[in-house]
């Protein structure tokens, strides 16, 4: 199996938010995440961006804690 670089990994993580990844792509990602903290963080951060963008028009609706 081909090992991914961080550049390829982040690219696939992003595409995973826009299309269904192939089985081989998912396996390759899992292998890379197992050894790479930076890419695990990037994945979490991209998922967070999605949540933040969905919350965008609601900002200020909830009272500040």
């Amino acid at each position, binding site marked *: 199996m081909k090992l991914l670089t961080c550049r*390829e990994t982040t690219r696939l993580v992003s595409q995973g938010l*826009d299309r269904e990844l192939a089985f081989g792509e998912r396996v390759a990602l899992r292998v890379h995440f197992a050894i790479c903290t930076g890419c695990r*963080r990037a994945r979490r951060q991209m998922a967070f961006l999605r*949540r933040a963008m969905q919350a965008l*028009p609601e*900002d200020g609706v909830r009272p500040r*804690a």
Partner: protein
Amino acid sequence: MPAPADFRAQIQALRPYLLRYASLQLRDAAAAEDCVQEALVAALAGESGFAGRANLRTWLTGILKHKIVDAIRRQSREAPLAAEDDEDLEDLDGLFARNGHWTERPPAWSDPDGALEQSRFFRALEACLARLPARTGRAFMMREHLGLETGEICKELDITPTHCWVLLYRARMALRECLQQTWFGK
């Protein structure tokens, strides 16, 4: 339900917010102004549809969103945004070394959920969005905020799916970096 005059005043008070919201997505002050105007007219005509159920801002934003999607479709037919010079994937501002690994590993973000509770965070996010190149920002807003599928974004922007994924990837990486600098790294 608020009295009519009161309702109108409440709606007018939200106008600056709505304008900022529309400009962020259309990147064209005149088009944003038109959209907001159309949305306000629709809102005043459909006041009974509101009936105090939802938050007024949320309700108005929902109406405005539809107007923005229409405007984007119109714009892509009449005056498509030009391709940008920096849409090339290989140039991600030195994030990666030649061997494809991080030049600097992304730091962990502390309490991202807490950020979603703060309006200051959303101001920072908006500022980062405004810094994206026009087409990149447009593709990203269509995907993540308006919730359109890649296929439709390709059609509206007249680009291939691969190109679309590149734009979305660039947007996500740039926003990560920007939020790191302006919010999470502080």
